[in-house]
């Protein structure tokens, strides 16, 4: 294309009066290697536009599904946590009760054995009484 025509288009371009088609012509011209030397600045400008167009959004668009899953996951997790805390508490309570019961039985057994010891001590006197009576009274001869 003649550089004369390009000059005209550029004037229109700077006044924002070019159509999209005319801008496409300019774009084409400056993508070429034969750019008139006095238009060198424009090459950078149109080069920038061309490069900008190549930039892409590469990530996948995620709609709400994943967030919903996360929500449910957290609900489930909190339910599990509550349940385990509750059963743990229950277990602990049971163990405490058992310990109390164990202690009171121990006490009861101790009491019993103490009294039993008293009884056997009294029996020892009884034994002594019997030997003395044997000494005093003659035993019938067999």
């Amino acid at each position, binding site marked *: 294309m003649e550089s004369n025509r390009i000059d005209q288009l550029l004037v229109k371009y700077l006044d*924002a009066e070019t159509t999209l088609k005319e*801008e496409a012509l300019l774009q084409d011209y400056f993508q070429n290697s034969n750019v008139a030397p006095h238009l060198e600045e424009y090459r*950078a400008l149109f080069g920038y*536009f061309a490069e900008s167009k190549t*930039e892409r959004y590469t990530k996948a*668009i995620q709609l709400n599904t994943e967030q919903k899953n996360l929500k449910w996951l957290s609900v489930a997790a909190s339910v599990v946590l509550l349940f385990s805390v509750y059963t743990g508490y229950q277990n602990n309570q049971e163990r405490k009760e058992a310990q109390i019961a164990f202690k009171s039985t121990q006490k009861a057994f101790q009491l019993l054995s103490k009294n039993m010891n008293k009884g056997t001590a009294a029996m020892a006197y009884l034994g002594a009484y019997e030997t003395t009576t044997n000494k005093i009274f003659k035993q019938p001869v067999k």
Partner: protein
Amino acid sequence: MTQSEFLNMVMPFKDKVFRFSKRLLVSTEEAEDATQELFLKLWKNREKISSYKNVEAFAMTMTKNYCFDRLKSKQASNLSLVHSNYKETGTSLDKKTNLNDSVSIVHQLIAKLPEQQRMIIQLRDVEQYEYEEIGEMLDLKQTAVRVALSRARKTIKQQLIKQHNYGIK
């Protein structure tokens, strides 16, 4: 509307939404988040969408509003994204622009334009929308769009000539 129907409808302009939000938010990550967020919003409003004549223009308007909100909340929380010291890394475009100095200069010049001019030049020269569509997206009259666009183009041209002459001297 099923998910696949919705995706078929929005897929054609997902890159445009992404590039538009990147032009406003500068950072690639921010722009990716904005794009994702925007499509989620559209999906939630899918019943309303079907009544719109031009879904794409509606999506671009939403993108603009969403990005403005993001920028505002950043300023409010004093975590403003400082355009001048924000360095992009790792995207293919930036790697390319680093190789090509003059193109990256244009990139910087456009980043310095006022927000409205930046949006308009993006929508016209990169995305190739009609003036009427741009007016609809940004809630402006066509004449206002043309005036802003002309200003933006002339500013960039003058800056480029300045840089060019500076290079020669």
